[in-house]
């Protein structure tokens, strides 16, 4: 028995939650077809149930009531544990998002069992061994999960979300959790209107010009901005850049930013950490510009130019202008 905490947005289960459900299905198949349940709390989007059916979910455990009127990791964790106990699940999963990891950690702490964050695959079932990302994905760790329930989150893009061959009729089991005061006080107290989604252009652009640490500072983007304009494209940046406050977050490409799939991605001064690669690997053609010929972005790219982006990009811009006359 497997239970998966499913996060939702207006369209249904999030992509990463569908990835976790897909991972759960391969685990279920390896275990001889054990049933997969889902857990969700609060208001749910239309069509979620049909979507869970497509992913082979037997029962959706739906937490309702005043306790889940606002998100709290402790409340969600308590409710998931209640659903898990009711379903008799021996595996508890979520996607490796901030909330997925948070809710699972509450379950693991309550039951005093280990938890593995950001798992990408599993090996044997007895003992149950998972492989997970550590050190930002540059190292993998094989970890044993001997105790039951086995608690783990699935790293983003470890598997591709795909529905089951035969859909299931998903039933709903409601639960009304009554969490402790300690959990209730740690719920969202107020929420501001989300900032407008400015990343739309990035996700649909045919050309994306990316810049990373190599930009050197907030004033190092003139060349790449001009190149983006010359190619009718959009600027994207790495996490280093938004982390340093050089550019706004909505321009970020990667596991915690936007996933892009342009015809051309020009990655300037970006080393190509695994989180960034997760966001740009769908580009049809990748050109890396980097001083380090051994940088992952260079070795994974289709084309590369070795050198300083501040010399190369202006030269490219100049060449484009020259050819256009």
């Amino acid at each position: 028995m497997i239970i998966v905490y499913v996060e939702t947005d207006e369209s249904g289960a999030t992509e990463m939650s569908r990835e976790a459900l897909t991972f759960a299905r391969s685990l279920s198949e390896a275990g001889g077809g054990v049933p997969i349940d889902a857990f969700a709390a609060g208001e749910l989007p239309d069509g979620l149930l049909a979507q869970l059916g497509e992913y082979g979910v037997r029962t959706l455990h739906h937490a309702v009531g005043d306790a889940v009127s606002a998100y709290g990791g402790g409340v969600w964790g308590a409710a998931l544990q209640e659903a898990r106990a009711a379903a008799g699940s021996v595996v508890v999963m979520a996607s490796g998002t901030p909330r997925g990891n948070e809710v699972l950690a509450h379950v693991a702490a309550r039951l005093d069992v280990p938890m593995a964050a950001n798992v990408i695959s599993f090996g044997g079932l007895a003992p149950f061994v998972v492989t997970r990302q550590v050190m930002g994905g540059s190292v993998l760790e094989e970890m044993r999960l001997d105790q039951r329930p086995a608690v783990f989150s699935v790293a983003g893009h470890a598997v591709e979300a795909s529905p089951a061959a035969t859909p299931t009729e998903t039933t709903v089991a409601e639960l009304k959790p009554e969490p402790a005061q300690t959990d209730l006080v740690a719920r969202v107290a107020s929420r501001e209107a989300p900032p407008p989604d400015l990343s739309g252009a990035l996700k649909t652009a045919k050309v994306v010009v990316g810049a990373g640490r190599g930009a050197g500072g907030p004033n190092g983007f003139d060349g790449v901005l001009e190149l983006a304009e010359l190619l009718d494209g959009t600027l994207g940046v790495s996490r280093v850049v938004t982390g340093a406050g050089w550019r706004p977050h909505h321009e970020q490409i990667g596991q915690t930013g936007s996933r892009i799939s342009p015809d051309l991605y020009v990655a300037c001064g970006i080393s190509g950490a695994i989180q960034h690669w997760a966001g740009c690997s769908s580009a049809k053609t990748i050109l890396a510009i980097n001083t380090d010929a051994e940088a992952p972005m260079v070795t994974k790219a289709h084309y590369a130019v070795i050198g300083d982006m501040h010399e190369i990009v202006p030269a490219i811009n100049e060449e484009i202008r020259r050819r256009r006359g």
Partner: protein
Amino acid sequence: MTNVLVCVKRVPDVSGEVALTADGQGIDTGQLGFTISDHEACAVELAVRIATDTGGTATVATVGPAEAVEQLRNALAIGCTAAVHVVADTAALGPADVARGLAEVAREQDLVLLGTDAADSGDFQVGIRLAHLLDRPVVNGLSTVEVQDGTVVARGDGPEGPETFRLPPPAVVTVMEGGVEPRYPSVPGRMKAKKVPIDERRPVAAPAGPNRVAYTLPPPVSSDVQILGEGAAAAPAVVDLFERIGVLSK
């Protein structure tokens, strides 16, 4: 007055390629410096601000090897007022062990700050396990934390937009980088930090361990990259490529 505990972990400072020890049980740190994660650096900054604003204390704690005193001194240099060192071999500990190691230290404090996860082990659970041991409320992944009229106010980005949590102390908050700029230590700060006595303790229980089988490195990706040239001289070849794949409108 809010007394704050901020928890940090000594981790290898890796920005480039990582090598493993021969037995696959650790990172080869022979050539590496050590640091704390960006999340923890922000947590230290927040702890110092809260202690200053409320007239309380900011204590830094770590569970780690003897050398981790370097990370404690760095936190003292930017304004922490006391330091607790639970001396232990980090490699033999799992996240539940670290939480247990911190629990006795944290019990005396009004507010405990940690990073969301350590930069090396990426477990995403020490703060939550600690809160459960202490039976205290915990919120996660917040970028600013203040104490207003005795209430802990923590703000961060949720999946649907900016969120605010308000919780009564004693409480635990895990911090995500991005809300504050960690300050650099001043020279007088460093001098002062050298004189602060470190409260050394031993772990109270035998560790359960990390359940680690071994570390491995991800398989290298075979490179079919075509190098178009070096430096500005490669510009014509780049623009040729743009023309070939049809992204250069006339």
